């Protein structure tokens, strides 16, 4: 097709019936179409700019992860060798073996999973209920409550931290996972406001007539919620679930505060990462010329291990995640 075109173009060029000026104009037109595009076709310049930007920003995004990964497979010699930057001379796996042994992975993984999963489920369930309530019904003081909900997102957590801690400890909730589940059940988990708003926008968008039709058919409000609202809000559930899971997984401040204040067996991968250096030194005491001294490679291996579960979840869910954002109505109209 394009070969034909170019053949025709070259034969037109050879056509002596056209003056040189006309030929030049034709070439100019072609070039400018190629460079700047016409109608809906984008030109080469714009395309080049788009890809350059995307790739360079993409590199900036990936840089820390690449650095982390490459450092984690460097042996001590490679780390010290200034000439080795990106490609290690050997793939050195004992960093991982050491990090793995330091981090008490089995227990920590169980703890992390539990601490991320259960509050997430509670949080998403409650957020969908509350969002539905705000979106579907009119009741007195609704606007006030809605404003207060947004306000509760803006309050710096430090103001609430100590009284909240005292309250939870008076209720005997600290030291167990309940310290996370109870607030999540009451719609006050990590960033709950955002999830409520996502569901609010989503339920606002589903057409009113659907609900009315169900009401005419004699469905009660809970049936409507479970049979109509929830199936239509699957994308909102996926986005909320992923965000909430990630935020709970990465939360360390509250975990330290609520869990270590009372003796518990629960530990999380990120708590292990925080105490990595101390734990390492306890396990491999530094002697005069021991080969086991902690180095960046081992630390980075620990970091890689700690984000690996999240990465795996992300790579399985990302397709739904990236697509469902378009549909989930986060932004409303």
């Amino acid at each position, binding site marked *: 097709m394009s070969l034909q075109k170019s053949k025709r173009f070259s034969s037109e060029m050879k056509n002596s019936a056209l003056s040189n000026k006309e030929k030049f104009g034709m070439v100019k037109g072609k070039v400018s179409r190629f460079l700047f595009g016409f109608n809906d076709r*984008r030109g080469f310049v714009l395309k080049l700019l*788009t890809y350059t*930007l*995307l790739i360079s*920003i*993409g590199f*900036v*995004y*990936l*840089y*820390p*992860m690449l*650095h*982390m990964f490459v*450092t984690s497979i460097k042996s001590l010699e490679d780390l010290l060798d200034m000439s080795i930057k990106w490609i290690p001379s050997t793939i050195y796996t004992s960093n991982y073996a050491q990090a793995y042994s330091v981090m008490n992975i089995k227990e920590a993984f169980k703890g992390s999973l539990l601490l991320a999963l259960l509050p997430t489920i509670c949080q998403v369930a*409650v957020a969908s*209920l*509350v969002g539905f*309530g705000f979106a*579907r*019904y*009119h*009741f007195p003081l*609704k606007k006030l409550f809605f404003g207060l*909900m947004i306000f*509760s997102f*803006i*309050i*710096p957590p*430090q*103001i*609430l931290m*100590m*009284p909240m801690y*005292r*309250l939870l400890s008076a209720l005997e909730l600290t030291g167990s996972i309940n310290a996370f589940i109870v607030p999540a059940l*009451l*719609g*006050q988990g990590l960033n709950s406001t955002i999830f*409520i708003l996502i569901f609010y926008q989503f339920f606002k968008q589903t057409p009113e007539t659907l609900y009315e039709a169900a009401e005419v058919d004699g469905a009660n*409000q809970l049936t409507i919620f479970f049979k109509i609202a929830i199936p239509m809000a699957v994308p909102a559930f996926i986005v909320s679930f992923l*965000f909430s899971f*990630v*935020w709970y997984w990465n*939360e*360390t401040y509250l975990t330290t505060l609520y869990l270590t204040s009372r003796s518990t067996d629960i530990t999380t991968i*990120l708590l292990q*990462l*925080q105490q990595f250096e101390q734990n390492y030194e306890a396990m491999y005491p530094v002697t005069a010329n021991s080969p086991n001294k902690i180095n960046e490679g081992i630390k*980075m291996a620990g*970091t890689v291990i*700690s984000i690996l579960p*999240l990465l795996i979840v992300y*790579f399985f869910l*990302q*397709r739904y*995640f*990236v697509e469902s*954002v378009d549909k989930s*109505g986060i932004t409303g109209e």
Partner: protein
Amino acid sequence: MRIKRKTIYGYLFIMPWLLGFLLLVLWPLIQSFYFSLNNMRITPVGLKFKFVGFTNYLDVWLKDMFFIQELLQFLANSILRVPVIVVFALIIAMLLNEKVKFKGAFRTIFFLPVIIASGPVIDQLIGQGAATVPLADQEVILSTLRQFLPMWIAQVIAELFNQIIIILWNSGVQILLFLAVLQKIDPQLYEAAKIDGGSGWECFWKITLPTIKPIILINLIYTLVALANSNQNPIINLIYTNMFSATRGYGFASAMAWMYAIVTTILLIVIFLIFREKEPKRRKL
């Protein structure tokens, strides 16, 4: 008076949140305010309160060496970073919204930071120097800027360059929000504009920007709150330190948190006033 059934249903659905708000937000808020008016001592028998009125609040401003300094730094940082993050997020969202090859792969990369940009992982990366671009030499930038800017502005900008990765990493949620709204703009609007001879540049200012304006506001507020409440914020750390310090104690830390909250709120209000939807002015006849 007969209560409407819808009212009952509404309250039933939001009941968990309402209870949570009263118990876990309002009550701690009142308590915290009460604490801030007291000198608190933690004794073996329990907490001891000594009412001191607003002295703590005055002390925050007059006696704390770091608070004002950190607050100014925070203000300068926010004024620079919030627009950078939001504009950057908008650019990325628009690029991702174009018809490009490997769109899925690019999106995967750009949302990746959302899942790791918090907690000790980022601390580890910063500690290892993995979060600074080696291409941008901090010292060179700083000395160039100092030639024509006062020191404190130059420092803030240089730090902006230095932490560009962290800043960019903080824009995941904002990109998401922008992308979602960009995809909802009716393509027919653009077609109509093209037929009328509008260029891409004009389309951006006349169609895209007005449509996404509410989201810009939301993103600005989200960014500011996220920056203000992040664990990497020195003021937050200052408050934590004071909380457990022997001489200051919790009452003082509460007062500081309140002052900080008020400053942040004022910033939010300013942003809101600048970017809110203005009612179209009625033309005078």
